[in-house]
C-alpha cells in the first residue's frame, strides 16, 4: 500500500517542480538596468591620440601616480565593501561566464583595452596598439612587468594562449568565442615577448569595443588552467586589482586587494558579493546597512529610499531601447503605413508616467541615449486619428487582428507594458492578442521556431559592446532574419547598406555618419514600435563614493572609496 503512494508522491514531485518552474518564470530576476553618473573625481586614464595616415596609435599610458597618502578618515575606517547582487554567479571562468559573473570578473582581471567612463577605448593590458592600412591587422604592444595573481608573467605568449583557448581549433563554444570571433586565429603571431599581431576576418569598426566588452577578453592565467582544468571557473586567476579570497556558492564571494596590482590600488581591502535574488530583500539590506551597494532597486522604491539620508540612489538611463519589434515579414506589418500607425497609436507618455512614475524617457531614435552615435531623429506623438487614417490608407479600414508576444519577469514591468500597449493598439483598430511567456527559454525558442505565429515582440535589446554596431547588426541586419534577435524579420537594402558601412569602417566620422543616416531611415521605416528607455537604479549607502555603473548595467567598484566625513 505504501509503495504506490511513494511512487505517486515522487512523480507528483517531479511533475510539480517542472510545471511550477515553467509556469512562473517571473521568479527570475529581471535583467534590468542600472547606471550612475561617473564620479567627477575618479582619476581619468590617459586619452588615446589620433594619428593620421589610416593608423591610430595610442600613446603609452603614463602611469597614474599612486596615492601617496591614505585618505584621512576619522573614526574606524571601513575596509570592506559589501554588495548585494541579483543573481548567483555560475562560474568565474572568464571565457564562459556572463552577466554579473563578468562584472565580478572585471575586478579580478583586465582586458587588452577597455572603455573609460566616457565610453572611449583606453589602454589596459595593451599599452598601445597600431592598426594596419588594410584595416584588419592589429599590433598590440603589451604592458610590461605585469603578473597574474599566481605569479605567471603577462606577455605575448599568455595572450596567444588566451586567444587559443577561446578561438583555437579545439575550443568548445564559449562566450569569449562570440566576442573575439572577429579574430582570425590562424593569423595570430607572437612578434616578441611583448608584441602580438593579429588579423580580423574583415574590417570591423566595432572590433576594439567587442574585445573590450565586459563579456569577453578578460585575460586568464595559463598556469591556472593547467592546474585546475575544468574547475578553473572556481579558481579564477587574473591580473586585476582584486583576487579571489573565498567563494561559498550561493552564499558569498569575497575578493581581496591584490597587493601587486600594476595599476592604481583600490581603496577597499575586500569586496564581498552576496547573491540576493529578491529585490525587496536587497532594499531591506541596504536600509539596515547590511550591504553598502544594492543592484537593481525597483522603481517603486526609489522615491521612498531617496528620502533616506543614509542612502544615495543613483539612476541613469540604460541602453535598452524598449520597443515592440514588428514582424515585417507578413501582414499587416509588412506595410510601412501600418507600422507607422502603430507608432502613432500608442500613448508613450501615459506609459512612462503611470508605469514608470516618470523614470523613463520616450525614445526619439532607434538608438537609446548613451550609445555613441546616438542622435534624436524624430518623434511619433500620440495621434489616434492619424493612426486610423494610416490604417485606412493601407487598406485596413476594419482594422486587423495581431498577436504580440511578451516575456514575463525578464524585463522591467514587461507584462504591464504589453497589456497597456495591447489595449492602445486595439483601440486604434489593431486588435491585439497578447501572449505572455513566463518561461524565457520558451520565449526565445518560439522567436525562431515559427516566425509566422506572431506580429510583434516586446523587447529591449541591450547593446552589449557599447558600440552602435551591436545595436543594429544583430537586430535589423537582413542576414539575421529567422535568427535570434532580428525579431522583426527585417530585411531592407537601404538599412543593410548603412549597417554594413558602419560595421566595416574604421573611421569614426564615417561610421557616425552612417549611423545617423541609419537612425533617420529606421525611424521613418519603423520596423519597431518605439517606446522608451527606462532608468535603472543602484542603491549606495551614504559615505561611499566612486561606484561607477556603466549604462550596460555593469557596476565597477575598484574606484569606490569612503568619503571623508
Amino acid at each position, binding site marked *: 500500500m505504501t509503495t504506490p503512494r511513494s511512487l505517486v508522491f515522487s512523480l507528483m514531485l517531479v511533475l510539480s517542480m517542472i510545471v511550477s518552474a515553467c509556469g512562473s518564470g517571473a521568479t527570475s530576476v529581471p535583467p534590468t538596468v542600472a547606471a550612475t553618473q561617473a564620479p567627477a573625481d575618479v582619476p581619468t586614464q590617459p586619452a588615446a591620440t589620433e594619428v593620421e595616415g589610416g593608423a591610430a596609435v595610442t600613446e603609452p599610458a603614463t602611469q597614474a601616480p599612486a596615492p601617496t597618502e591614505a585618505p584621512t578618515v576619522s573614526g574606524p575606517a571601513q575596509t570592506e565593501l559589501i554588495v548585494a547582487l541579483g543573481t548567483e554567479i555560475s562560474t568565474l571562468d572568464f571565457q564562459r561566464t556572463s552577466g554579473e559573473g563578468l562584472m565580478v570578473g572585471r575586478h579580478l582581471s583586465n582586458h587588452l583595452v577597455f572603455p573609460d567612463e566616457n565610453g572611449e577605448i583606453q589602454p589596459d593590458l595593451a599599452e598601445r596598439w597600431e592598426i594596419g592600412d588594410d584595416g584588419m591587422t592589429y599590433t598590440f604592444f603589451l604592458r610590461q612587468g605585469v603578473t597574474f595573481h599566481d605569479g605567471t608573467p603577462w606577455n605575448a605568449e599568455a595572450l596567444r594562449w588566451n586567444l587559443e583557448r577561446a578561438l583555437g581549433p579545439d575550443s568548445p563554444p564559449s562566450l569569449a568565442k562570440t566576442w573575439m570571433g572577429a579574430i582570425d586565429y590562424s593569423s595570430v603571431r607572437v612578434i616578441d615577448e611583448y608584441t602580438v599581431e593579429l588579423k580580423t576576418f574583415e574590417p570591423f569598426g566595432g572590433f576594439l569595443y567587442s574585445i573590450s566588452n565586459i563579456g569577453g577578453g578578460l585575460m586568464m592565467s595559463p598556469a591556472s588552467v593547467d592546474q585546475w582544468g575544468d574547475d578553473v571557473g572556481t579558481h579564477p586567476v587574473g591580473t586585476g586589482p582584486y583576487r579571489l579570497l573565498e567563494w561559498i*556558492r*550561493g552564499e558569498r564571494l569575497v575578493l581581496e586587494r591584490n597587493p601587486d596590482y600594476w595599476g592604481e590600488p583600490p581603496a577597499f581591502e575586500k569586496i564581498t558579493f552576496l547573491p540576493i535574488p529578491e529585490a525587496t530583500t536587497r532594499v531591506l539590506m541596504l536600509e539596515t546597512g547590511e550591504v553598502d551597494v544594492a543592484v537593481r532597486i525597483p522603481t517603486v522604491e526609489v522615491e521612498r529610499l531617496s528620502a533616506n539620508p543614509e542612502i544615495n540612489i543613483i539612476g541613469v538611463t540604460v541602453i535598452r531601447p524598449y520597443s515592440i519589434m514588428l514582424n515585417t515579414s507578413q501582414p499587416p506589418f509588412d506595410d510601412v503605413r501600418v507600422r507607422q500607425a502603430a507608432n502613432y497609436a500608442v500613448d508613450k507618455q501615459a506609459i512612462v508616467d503611470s508605469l514608470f512614475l516618470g523614470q523613463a524617457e520616450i525614445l526619439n531614435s532607434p538608438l537609446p541615449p548613451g550609445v555613441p552615435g546616438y542622435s534624436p531623429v524624430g518623434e511619433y506623438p500620440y495621434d489616434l486619428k492619424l493612426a486610423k487614417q494610416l490604417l485606412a490608407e493601407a487598406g485596413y479600414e476594419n482594422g486587423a487582428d495581431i498577436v504580440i508576444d511578451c516575456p514575463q519577469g525578464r524585463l522591467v514591468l514587461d507584462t504591464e507594458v504589453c497589456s497597456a500597449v495591447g489595449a492602445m493598439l486595439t483601440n486604434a483598430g489593431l486588435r491585439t492578442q497578447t501572449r505572455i511567456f513566463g518561461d524565457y527559454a520558451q520565449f526565445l525558442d518560439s522567436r525562431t521556431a515559427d516566425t509566422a505565429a506572431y506580429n510583434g515582440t516586446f523587447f529591449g535589446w541591450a547593446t552589449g559592446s557599447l558600440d552602435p554596431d551591436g545595436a543594429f547588426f544583430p537586430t535589423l541586419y537582413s542576414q539575421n532574419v529567422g535568427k535570434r534577435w532580428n525579431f522583426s524579420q527585417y530585411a531592407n537594402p537601404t538599412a543593410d547598406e548603412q549597417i554594413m558601412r558602419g560595421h566595416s569602417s574604421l573611421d569614426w566620422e564615417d561610421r557616425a555618419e552612417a549611423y545617423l543616416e541609419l537612425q533617420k531611415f529606421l525611424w521613418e521605416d519603423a520596423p519597431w514600435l518605439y517606446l522608451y528607455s527606462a532608468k535603472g537604479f543602484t542603491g549606495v549607502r551614504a559615505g561611499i563614493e566612486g561606484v561607477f555603473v556603466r549604462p550596460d548595467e555593469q557596476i565597477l567598484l575598484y574606484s569606490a572609496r569612503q568619503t571623508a566625513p
Partner: protein
Amino acid sequence: MVKYVVRRTAMVLPLLLLVSAASFLLLYLVPGDPATLLAPPDATTEFVEELRLHLGLDDPLHEQYLRYLWGLIRGDLGRSYLTNRSVVEELAPRFLATIELALASLLLSIPIGLVIGIGAAMKRGSLLDAFLMLSSVVGLSMPAFWLGLVLMLVFSLSLGWLPSSGRGDWRNLVLPAMTLSTWSIAIIGRMTRASMLEVLRRDYIRTARAKGLVEWLVLYRHALRNALLPILTVIGLRFGYMLSGAVITETVFAWPGMGRFIVQAIQSRDYPNIRGALMLLAASFLVVNLLVDVLCAAADPRIRSQQ
C-alpha cells in the same frame, strides 16, 4: 521487523529508476533549448548549433538516457552545463543548507504543534480551542512571501536583532525557520487535535481514567502514543516537502538551498543539474517515507504483523 525494513528498502531502487526515466522524458518534452539559453546574447545561430552538438543534445533520446543511466550507476551525475562543475559537487552544499533549514524548522514546529494540538483537544469546544484553531487557519493561509518580509521588517529593520538574510550562524537561521514553520505548526496542531479527539473517545481511555490514573499519564501513555501514527505521517510528509526546498522562503531570505537551485536550473535548462536534483529529491522523499513507515511499524505492532 528486519525483514520488513529490508523489503521496504528494496522497493526504493525500482522507484528511483522510474523517477529517472520520468524526469528524463519530461525534460525532453518541456519546450526550451538549453543551448539557446547558454549561448551569449549576441551568439549566432551557427554558434547555438555548435553548442547543441557539443552538449550532445542532438543524439537520439535513448542514447542520451542510456549514457545518463550508465553515469548514474557509477555515481556520476554529469557536469552542469552552466558552471561546468560536477553535479554532485553542486548539489551537496545546497542539500546540506536545505537540511539545516528543514531540521531547524521541524525542531521549532513539532513541540509547538503538539502542544497546540493537545491543548485544543483537551479543552475541546472552549474559547481556547476556538482561538487555537482559528490561529492555525491563519497560519495555514499566511503566504510565506509576505510573512518572511514582515518578519524581516520587524526583527531586522526595526529592532535590528537578526540579520535579514543569507546563511551564516544560528542567527541567520531564525527568521527563515520561523517562516517555514508557520505552516507546519498549523498542520501538526490540527492533525494532533483531530487524532487526539479520536483516541480520547476510546474505551481504554475511559478505563484508564476510571482506574484513577493521573491525567497527564493518561494523555502521555495511552492517548498520545495511540494518536501518534497520523501525526508522524504528516510530519514525515512535511519534512519530505521541506527537503525539496522551500523556493519562496529560500528566495526571500537568500538561503542557498535546493529550492532556489532547482528553479535556477530549470530556468536555464541546465539538464544535468535538474536531473541530479530531482533524483536526490526523489531519493530523499523515498527515504523519509521509508523512515516514517518504519517508525510507524515500531510504534504500532499491528503494522508489522500485517505484512
